[in-house]
């Protein structure tokens, strides 16, 4: 049950492996890895800078997790989100969820990611060869979140 923010790259499969071993008795392990795509609308992305308001991101993510845990029965979760400079093809975010039955993991993991997208205080700036640009929040991301929580 951890929410980690870090500058350093992480090896997602080591973390998933460890998580799965830590949750030996779970029947389902869900995971999601978000990575930096090397292109965004024909622009070559050389790197991205992720800014973080750490205290608030922790508060917001914990709040969402609390709500999701009331709704879905899960055994464990892990969230890792990077900040600082991240290169194309590197991971940005990892969510892993363990539960007895698969649907709980799916709903929890997807719901958590949906909320992180619109509530967790991270901002991405994409750096191109001659310029850089702040990434806008996607309209669709606001539509995905489950306000009944």
């Amino acid at each position, binding site marked *: 049950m951890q929410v980690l923010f870090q500058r350093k790259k992480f090896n997602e499969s080591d973390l998933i492996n460890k998580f799965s071993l830590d949750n030996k008795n779970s029947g389902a392990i869900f995971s999601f890895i978000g990575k930096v795509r090397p292109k965004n609308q024909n622009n070559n992305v050389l790197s991205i800078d992720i800014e973080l308001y750490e205290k608030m991101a922790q508060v917001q993510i914990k709040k969402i997790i609390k709500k999701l845990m009331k709704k879905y029965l899960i055994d464990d979760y892990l969230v890792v989100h990077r900040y600082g400079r991240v290169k194309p093809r590197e991971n940005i975010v990892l969510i892993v969820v363990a539960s007895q039955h698969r649907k709980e993991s799916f709903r929890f993991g997807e719901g958590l990611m949906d909320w992180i997208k619109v509530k967790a*205080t991270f901002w991405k700036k994409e750096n191109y060869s001659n310029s850089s640009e702040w990434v806008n929040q996607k309209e669709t991301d606001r539509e995905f979140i489950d306000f009944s929580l």
Partner: protein
Amino acid sequence: MKILYFAKLKQLIGKSEETICIRKKKKISQIINELKKRNDVYNFAFKESNSLQYAVNCEYVDLDFFVTDSDELAIFPPVSGG
């Protein structure tokens, strides 16, 4: 009261935080109006204050929210992490 700026807003204003003094509770919209009057930089940065997001002590609030001097106000464009 401490004000924190993030992302593009921080870049426009040229600093990540500042402290202002407010004697009694005030609406965030009122604070924004006062900041806008300071100079062109602030005026431009807060031009579209409706599309910015506001948080007091790490909770999202809207422009009508009242703050006091002991609060921490954060202002930023919609988040784009994940």
